[in-house]
């Protein structure tokens, strides 16, 4: 029987672990960007440290763009005339560059402080 008990405890522990901390997912800082004529608007944005971030990118151009950043570890295709959401984990203070992978002239940076 102690075996059974231990297994139940382990299962409960695993479930608790998988739930994660819900507060973390909810309290994201939202950053709205528009993309038009091959440029991010605004191209310089900032956010507080240690809080998750959600980028909302509205692509107003007639062609798809790919929001990408190696330091933020994200890449996401945003189709022409649509909006994409990119979730980023809580970050340490610093400067994080992002760009359009389909158009290297479109660049911007996120400052976390």
């Amino acid at each position, binding site marked *: 029987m102690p075996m059974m008990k231990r297994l139940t405890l382990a299962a409960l522990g695993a479930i608790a672990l998988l739930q994660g901390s819900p507060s973390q997912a909810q309290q994201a800082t939202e950053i709205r960007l528009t993309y038009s004529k091959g440029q991010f608007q605004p191209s310089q944005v900032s956010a507080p440290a240690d809080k998750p971030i959600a980028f909302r990118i509205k692509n107003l151009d007639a062609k*798809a763009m790919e929001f990408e950043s190696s330091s933020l570890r994200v890449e996401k295709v945003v189709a022409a005339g649509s909006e994409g959401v990119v979730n980023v984990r809580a970050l340490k203070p610093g400067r994080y560059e992002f760009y359009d992978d389909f158009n290297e002239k479109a660049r911007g940076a996120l400052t976390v402080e």
Partner: protein
Amino acid sequence: MLAALIIVFREVFEAGLIIGIVLAVTGSVPHRNRWIGGGVLVGALAACLVAAFTGALSQLFAGMGQELFNAAILAVAVTMLTWHNVWMAHHGREMAGEMRAVGQAVAEGSKSLLALAVVVGVAVLREGSEVALFLYGVAASDGGSGLSFAIGGFIGLVLGAGVCLLTYFGLMRIPPRALFATTTTLITLLAAGMAAQAVVFLERANWLNSLDTVVWDSGWLISETSLAGRTLHTLIGYTDQPTEMQLLVYAAVVLATFMLMRLTGSHPADRAVAAG
């Protein structure tokens, strides 16, 4: 033109590596070209379809449709690769022997080929949809420079095919006896890397929040965006900032493959059941 070349090559590169490995794995299996070619074709068609509906796909699951779709197709590829390894551990010996010519072995071989064709299809689909979107965007916006972009894209595609052939002929230089062990290891790590990549997509979609602490940052040594980083990323799932969950899933896939291969490989008596 150069921009198109670079973008297309970068996307095709990963698919090229994977197809090269699959070609080497299936080196002696009859009709393999038909299956792999079919995988490439279906993958390319699916890529165009996905590209056409990217906007709609994105809107699913509260804007996380792309991420979840990627995680799902990666999971399919991981399953197929693992299944192939386990299947080979089970039947590999008889296939390598005199029974290869027997009709049944051919029929059995096609089962494993289907799994690998799916893997190829998934690889082409993942990379191809971005290429299709990019090239479509270029073609739609400026007709004038369209031709030079098309040429750039085509050269990128040819270079990608070159990567595929290089991988294939590189692997074929390995003596047949060692080839099986090599490809088994390669496919196991390929599957583990894809599983870890699926974790990234689930983390991005906020579907997986636990154990998301980055364990190390080896970006200073090999950046994931460099050519070496990209190659290692595809082959063994290298990432310069893995999270705990990624490492856990990676280890789990390697361990599961190893255990399943031991379990099925050591009981040749079960063969009759599986074959029947």
